[in-house]
């Protein structure tokens, strides 16, 4: 065959351009972002979407950022940490105090908080090299309690038990003064950027090395993977994500109470990651929507759950247990297995009706 024939064949076999767009790894996330933007626009200009739903989505996206970091830490490197909640809290305090002092573009605060996250992540990562599994969990839990004590005790940095209140909204690029409703779009933008970063980390050599480390540390070491480097890197990523999520929180909610930043929040984020089942952003975001958004956005619209709010929480707990019991691989595994089940169901029906295929 000639060279032209090859080109013609390639042209013929090339899928339709719409199909190519749909197969792009970012396509699903872009669709999700557009949907969420439409939801917010509906809230801002019509009465179709209520305030609680918009705020629930906002908080969910903020916590999903922290969950993305924890996903890399837990699912890729196999390190269990319960310190996420307090790192988010630290991020809110650093960004909140800076917001009160200076009026600069929002990127500046994100950068400062990320640098602080790198420093703390290195410290925690080096500490973590001595602890493994349950020890690491308890060490991070103790760390989280120490930070909680620091937040609650009266001091000018955290504002003591009453926390930081009345933090001004940031400006964008020296121009736009944001408010609560426009911060939603900023949160979405930052989340989208971090989703792309996460996808790249997972598919790069860093991600492969972390995956190898989580399977067998000794084997990974024998293959030439520097354990300290990748452990510290995993912790740095998780901490930076958590602190950035804290900065987003203080910028869009404008107050921070120390009683939010407990191990309970860290456990909830952990559950969101495990229910998602993968470090991939699809799973993490699905898990955080189930964990943080379902009860506020959907269940409260059903009259039975609106009348007794504890029933909604009960339902959530039931759902968590059911998913972990039936589908230990998480939501994504559930979807694929359900797909397979429906396919086999239809195949069997066809088999009964028409007999086996002739070809």
């Amino acid at each position, binding site marked *: 065959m000639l060279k032209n024939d090859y080109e013609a064949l390639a042209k013929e076999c090339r899928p339709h351009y719409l199909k190519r767009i749909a197969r792009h790894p970012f396509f699903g996330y872009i669709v999700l972002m557009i949907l969420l933007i439409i939801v917010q626009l509906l809230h801002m200009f019509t009465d179709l979407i209520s305030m609680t739903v918009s705020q629930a989505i906002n908080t969910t996206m903020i916590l999903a950022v922290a969950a993305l970091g924890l996903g890399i830490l*837990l699912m890729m490197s196999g390190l269990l940490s319960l310190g996420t909640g307090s790192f988010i809290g630290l991020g809110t305090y650093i960004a909140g105090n800076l917001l009160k002092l200076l009026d600069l573009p929002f990127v500046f605060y994100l950068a400062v908080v990320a640098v602080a996250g790198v420093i703390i992540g290195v410290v925690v990562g080096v*500490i973590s090299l001595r602890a493994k599994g*349950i020890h690491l969990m308890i060490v991070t839990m*103790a760390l989280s309690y*120490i930070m909680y*004590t620091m937040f609650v*005790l009266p001091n000018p940095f955290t504002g003591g038990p009453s926390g930081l209140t009345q933090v001004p909204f940031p400006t964008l690029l020296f121009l736009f003064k944001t408010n609560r409703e426009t911060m939603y779009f900023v949160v979405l933008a930052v989340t989208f950027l971090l989703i792309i970063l996460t996808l790249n980390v997972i598919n790069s050599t860093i991600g492969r090395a972390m995956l190898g480390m989580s399977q067998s540390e000794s084997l990974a070491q024998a293959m030439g993977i520097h354990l300290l480097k990748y452990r510290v890197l995993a912790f740095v990523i998780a901490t930076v994500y958590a602190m950035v999520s804290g900065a987003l929180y203080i910028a869009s909610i404008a107050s921070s109470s120390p009683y939010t930043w407990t191990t309970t929040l860290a456990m909830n984020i952990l559950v969101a990651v495990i229910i998602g089942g993968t470090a991939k952003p699809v799973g993490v975001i699905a898990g955080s929507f189930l964990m943080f958004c379902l009860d506020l956005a959907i269940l409260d619209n059903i009259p039975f759950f609106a009348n007794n709010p504890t029933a909604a929480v009960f339902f959530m*707990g039931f759902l968590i247990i059911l998913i972990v019991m039936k589908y*230990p691989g998480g939501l994504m595994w559930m979807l694929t297995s359900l797909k397979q089940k429906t396919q086999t169901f239809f195949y069997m029906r066809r088999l009964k009706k028409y007999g086996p295929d002739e070809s």
Partner: protein
Amino acid sequence: MPRHCKAPAAKSELARLTAAKRLKPERGLLEVLDFRLEKSITKGEIDLQNAIQLILNSIFQIGVLALTTVGMSLTFKTVYVVNFAQAITSTVGAFMAAFLLRDAGFNAWTSMLGGVAICFFLGYIMDNVIIRNIAGGSGRIMITIGLIVLITAAIPLVFGLNPFTFPRYFMGNLNFSFLGMDLYVSANALFVFLLSAVVIGIIFLALRFTKWGLGVRGTASNKVVASMMGVNTDLMTALSWGISSACGALAAVLYASQTSLVSVTMLATVLANSLLAFIVGGYNSFYGPAIGAALIPVLLVFLAMIDGLWANGMMYILVMLFILVRPTGLFGTKTRKKV
């Protein structure tokens, strides 16, 4: 005569010397320390009596913490799960006991037994229905967190929103003197401590001498081999869950009897401290966690004497450093892993 004359002279000499000393104090370091100690004891800063009294006040916490920790170590040894839901299942026992006492006409003792029995069945069913059917790994920890969410919501649904109270089993204080110090201890706190010590003692003796204990120890060391040798490992794990929940329920009822408070979050700090005690004592020994549980409230008392506000924070820092220096805990042994 000379003696008679000399005495006043000597007296005046002494007076002169002491006066000089008062003007120019020349004391060594030891004397200064002694002086400070004397002063602080009289002021009540570093008071031995005070310290012992504070430890006696927190004696019921030692008992409650030890019971919870022993229950947690039982489940960890047999199923390899850190049971975060331990505190909340125990709280169900306390609510059940308070409910039986208030609405069903039980007295304080039988309602305690009722709460413990209910929790035993709860733990047994939990293992039979949920925990056993999960492949292991982090899924089991997730289940315990899911149970926290579920039970926290279920308690107000089942028991209603009216607050519960629980009475003390014994009223009044016991006064006694020890090494010349007048001390007192609340009779109920002493009862809590003694009852938990007796229960823990019975569990340890049963682990050592009964057939159940042999089965549990076999399951803990190697589940597969134990089941091949004819140990009903499923029954063993279910019983351990039941007994661990029953221990927790007893702890919760005793805690409620001392603080007269029954609420959903009443055991939150106990859970955190028992996790720390569990690691400090050494998580792969049966007896270590109980000793760790006895140490933590005492440590907390001494830290509270240094700084009341920062006592908890300092304890967490100390425990964190301890875990990093000695990951196996006080009584743990190192396990080796093959590639």
